[in-house]
């Protein structure tokens, strides 16, 4: 099994720390806030670990990025993955979905045979939700997206896929790619034993050249024109009262007055 995991700026950081550099169309990383693995990607690893718990197998994690903190990316090994591959190359920094998928697909081809690739449903920074499907398309394998449960059954993979009013059960042949959603449940915390073991597990660092990718040939399909924070206009009208009960009743009266109820 292969898991794709991305290091991102912590999405749970307080909204007040979120700043954009409009000239560079970039987000300014908040000072003193540790990066994390995108939560959906941790859930992707959790899905793989549950299969490993039940039926065995090995899990290889691939991360691509720059300035990846070892303490952050090693968490995947502490959780229970067996090997870590880091693709660190300035030439591959800040790629759009299209090029990211090509680079990851190239790394997966280099790793070799696999049964299932797990990705998060989207990275919790750019929220694009395209890389997983893109890798599957490039590798020519079937994909099932937005999974809340993944089981290996008789050599096939059985997926519960979240839809608006419930879920669909889909069986897919291997090799395949599954993207995992938050409905899968909380990923496990690394145990002390897991953290100790992670230090002895193999980590490989690759450049673009190592995975046979020529960065000059990675042409983006979309162009970012503008990244901005929209001003929120208007202010909140706070309900007052002698007592909290009165404030509550005043809220109802006010909503009636403005004909909302």
């Amino acid at each position, binding site marked *: 099994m292969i898991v794709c995991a991305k290091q991102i700026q912590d999405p749970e950081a307080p909204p007040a720390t*979120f700043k954009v550099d409009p000239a560079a169309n970039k987000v300014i990383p908040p000072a003193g806030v540790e990066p994390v693995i995108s939560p959906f990607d941790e859930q992707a690893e959790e899905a793989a670990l549950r299969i490993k718990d039940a039926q065995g197998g090995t899990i290889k994690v691939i991360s691509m990025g720059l300035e990846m903190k070892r303490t952050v990316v090693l968490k995947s090994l502490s959780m229970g993955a067996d090997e870590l591959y880091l693709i660190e190359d300035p030439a591959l920094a800040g790629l759009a979905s299209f090029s990211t998928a090509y680079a990851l697909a190239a790394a997966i081809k280099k790793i070799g045979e696999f049964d299932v690739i797990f990705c998060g449903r989207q990275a919790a920074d750019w929220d694009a939700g*395209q890389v997983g499907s*893109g890798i599957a*398309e490039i590798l020519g394998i079937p994909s099932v*997206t937005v999974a809340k449960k993944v089981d290996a059954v008789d050599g096939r993979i059985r997926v519960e896929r979240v839809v608006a009013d419930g879920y669909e*059960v889909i069986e897919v042949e291997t090799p395949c790619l599954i993207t995992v959603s938050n409905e899968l449940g909380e990923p496990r915390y690394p145990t002390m034993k897991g953290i100790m073991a992670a230090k002895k597990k193999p980590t490989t660092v690759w450049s673009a050249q190592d995975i046979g990718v020529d960065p000059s040939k990675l042409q*983006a399909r979309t162009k970012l024109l503008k990244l901005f924070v929209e001003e929120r206009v*208007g202010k*909140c009208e706070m309900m007052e009262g002698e007592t909290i009960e009165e404030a509550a009743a005043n809220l109802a*009266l006010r909503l009636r007055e403005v004909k909302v109820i």
Partner: protein
Amino acid sequence: MAENKGVVILAETLDGKLSPAALELLGGGRGLADELGEELSAVIMGSGIAGLAQDAIAYGADRVYTVDDPLLKDYQTETYVPVMEKVVKEASPNIVLMGQTAIGRDLVPRLAFRLEAGASMDCIRLEIDPETKLLKQTRAVYGGNALATYVSEVKPQMATVRAKVMDALPRDDSRKGEVVTIDAGLDPSKIRTKFIEKVKEEVVGIKLEDADVVVSGGRGMGDAEGFKELEKLAGVLRAAVGSSRPPCDQGWVPASMQVGLTGKIVSPTLYIAVGISGAAQHISGMSGSKNIVAINKDAEANIFKVAHYGVVGDWKKILPPFTEKVKELLG
């Protein structure tokens, strides 16, 4: 694709009719096509759907491609992507739009990679640039903390559209259009997935997406029991009950009740947020609501930045008298 012209939308079906998302795409797609002076085509695929072509025309399409095949009864990536690829190659459009639905979010990235085109997912604004005539695609990023506007470098320009961003047109049966039947041409031996079943998790009461009033609870509700008080209020207001992400993750309420970037996107007339701090990912699912009420014990909570009316305090003390007063006013 030599010349890319026209707007193509995928019109999804629901219970044997065009879905609300399909009608919105027809309305919005019509506007974009008119602005470009180009045609609007709708694609309808499924099993036994041919009769819906006239509906798509009445709601704005100039042309309808129908693909009717028993293999298309249920959505599967393996069947829908090649069929959509075939239709797009036939139509050679300038723009391809789908809803940000279970289908659109799965189909569009895969189709975009197959066509070597780009796509923007879950757009909340789509405009034609007056100078370049390109489609400017704006979407929420960083969990709704920021917005990003993109243009495509290649054609067709592809995007999925968030629910309720576009408006459906009134039905006009006098509209005329062309219907083109396309053969799915699927080889069953090449389908590597099998659709086993669909399990419906029915939420009792009014559906979130359709509700005019939504009452939502967050981490501050404390436990599943807390949501009972919300249900009382919802009963009086004929509202749907929603939730932010933590109560779903904690298992207090089903995941289908989640409002937010990774849950349901709602834009009711009235949205009441109780015990919700207002994480960006929740805000991006409800900020389109016309009137937002926040009840939270923390006066500094982010939710008050988007709310129109607020009460600071413990919901346990606020909700019962509020519900009582609303009942009295409506009675």
